[in-house]
C-alpha cells in the first residue's frame, strides 16, 4: 500500500530513550524547569512535545506529555512542568526529581503546533498560564537562529509571581522585534496599563496583529482561555487556518 510521504519529524519509529536530569530550575512556586540530557535526541521543532514515562519499583508505569521549552540544538532539552495538586506525575517531576536522576522519554511528538523559522509571516503567540511553555521554545528558536520575524506574545497569567521565564521575558530580556505583553487576571504590578481581568477583544486588538498582516497565531493554555482567544481572533478576521491551538487541561498532571 502506497502512502504519501509523512511531513514533520515523526518519520520512522519513535523509541523510548533514557534521559538524565542535569539541572532543575524553579520557575514559580508550583512550576519547575527540568534540564535533561538525552544522548539519542535527534532534534525537534519549536512547539513540539515529548512523552515522559515513569516506572515504579514494582514495574507499574505511567506516561504523560510535556511541551519542550528549549530551542532545538544538541542533546540537551528542557521541559517546564506545572505541579497539578492531585496529579500523579507532575508532583514527582516538580518536587522529587533532582539532578542525576533518570527518566524515559519519547519524542518529539506533534507536527502541527510548530513554528517554522523559514516562514516570514509575523507571529502572534497567546499563552494562558503554563501554555507559555511551547511558545517559549518558539521565542528561543527565533533568537537562536537570528530570525528577524516579528513576534508578539500576549501572556495571560494570574499574578506577577506566576510568570514563567520571568527574567527572559522581563525588561532585561528584550529582543529586537519581540513585543511582550503580560495580561494579569487577578493582580497586576503597580502602574499597570490595564486593570486585572481576563483576555478581552480590546487586548487582542491592542497587543496582537491586525488580521490583514496575516500572522501565524499560536494559542496555548487552558481550554477556556484557548476557546476565548481563538474565538476573538476569528471574530477579528483572522483566517482560522492560521490559528493553531493547543490546550492544557487540568489533567496534564
Amino acid at each position, binding site marked *: *500500500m*502506497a*502512502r*504519501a510521504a*509523512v*511531513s*514533520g*519529524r*515523526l*518519520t*520512522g*519509529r*519513535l523509541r523510548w530513550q*533514557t534521559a538524565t536530569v542535569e539541572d532543575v530550575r524553579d520557575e514559580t512556586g508550583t512550576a519547575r524547569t527540568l534540564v535533561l540530557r538525552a544522548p539519542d535526541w535527534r532534534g525537534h521543532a519549536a512547539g513540539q512535545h515529548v*512523552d515522559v*514515562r*515513569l*516506572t*515504579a*519499583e514494582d*514495574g*507499574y*508505569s*505511567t*506516561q*504523560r*506529555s510535556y511541551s519542550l521549552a528549549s530551542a532545538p540544538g544538541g542533546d540537551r532539552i528542557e521541559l517546564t512542568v506545572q505541579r497539578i495538586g492531585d496529579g*500523579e*506525575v507532575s508532583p*514527582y517531576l516538580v518536587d*522529587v526529581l533532582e539532578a542525576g*536522576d*533518570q*527518566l*524515559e522519554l519519547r519524542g518529539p*511528538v*506533534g*507536527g*502541527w*503546533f510548530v513554528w517554522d523559522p523559514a516562514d516570514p509571516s509575523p507571529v502572534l503567540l497567546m499563552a494562558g498560564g503554563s501554555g507559555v511553555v511551547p511558545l517559549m521554545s518558539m521565542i528561543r528558536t527565533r533568537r537562536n537562529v537570528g530570525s528577524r520575524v516579528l513576534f508578539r506574545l500576549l501572556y495571560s497569567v494570574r499574578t506577577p509571581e506566576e510568570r514563567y521565564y520571568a527574567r527572559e521575558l522581563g525588561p532585561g530580556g528584550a529582543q529586537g522585534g519581540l513585543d511582550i505583553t503580560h495580561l494579569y487576571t487577578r493582580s497586576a504590578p503597580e502602574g499597570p496599563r490595564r486593570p486585572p481581568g481576563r483576555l478581552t477583544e480590546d487586548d487582542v486588538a491592542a497587543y496582537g496583529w491586525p488580521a490583514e498582516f496575516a500572522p501565524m497565531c499560536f494559542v496555548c493554555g487552558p*481550554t477556556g482561555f484557548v*476557546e476565548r482567544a*481563538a*474565538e476573538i*481572533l*476569528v471574530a477579528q478576521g483572522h483566517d*482560522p*487556518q492560521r*490559528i*493553531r*491551538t493547543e*490546550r492544557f*487541561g*487540568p*489533567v496534564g498532571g
Partner: protein
Amino acid sequence: MAVISRGFHGRRPTEEKLPPGQYVVHDFPVLSAGPTPVVAKEDWQFTLTTVAGDTRHWSWQDLTALPAERPTVDIHCVTKWSKFRTEWEGVSLDTLLDGVDLDGDYAMVQSYGGYTTDLPLEDLLDGQAWIAYRYDHDDLPAEHGGPARLLVPHLYFWKSAKWVNGIRLMDSDEPGFWEGLGYHEYGDPWREQRYQGD
C-alpha cells in the same frame, strides 16, 4: 529494561479496562488543532461520497429522523487520558449507510474546519461507530464537536472526528490530518498504536 524512577510510586488503576499507557480522567478534556467551528444545526449537512464519486446527503432533519441509539462507551485519547462510561446518543453508521453501495475498503472522514481522519471502512460498521449529536443527555457542545461528531470508541479518540460533515470511501488508504503528522494509521489503544511504526 525500564528505568526505575527513584521515589516514584504512582497510582494503580482501579479499573482493569484501561489500555496500556493510559490514565483515567473524570472531566472531559478538549483537544483541537484550531478554532472551534461554529456550525448551526440548520446549516449542517453530511455527505457520503462513494468510490465512484456518487454522493448522498443528509440534513440535520434527515439525521435526527433516523432511529437513534444510546451507546455508553469508554473513550481513549492518544494524549493518554481515558474516560469510562461516557453516554452518547446518535445514529449508528450501520443505519446511516444501509442501502448505500459500500465499495472501497477505506474511509476518509471529513469535518467542518478541514480536519480529516482515515480508517478502514469495516471499523465504521457492525455496531462500532455512530454519528453522535448528544452527550451526557444534552446537546453535544461545540468544543466537543457539536452539533455532531463521529464516535468510534474502539480506536484512539482522534479518529472520532469532531464537527463531522462527510465520509469519502476509498479503494486504498490515505493519511488524514494527524496520520500525516506522524500518528499511527490505525490507532488501536489496546496495542498502544500511538505513533507511526508503533
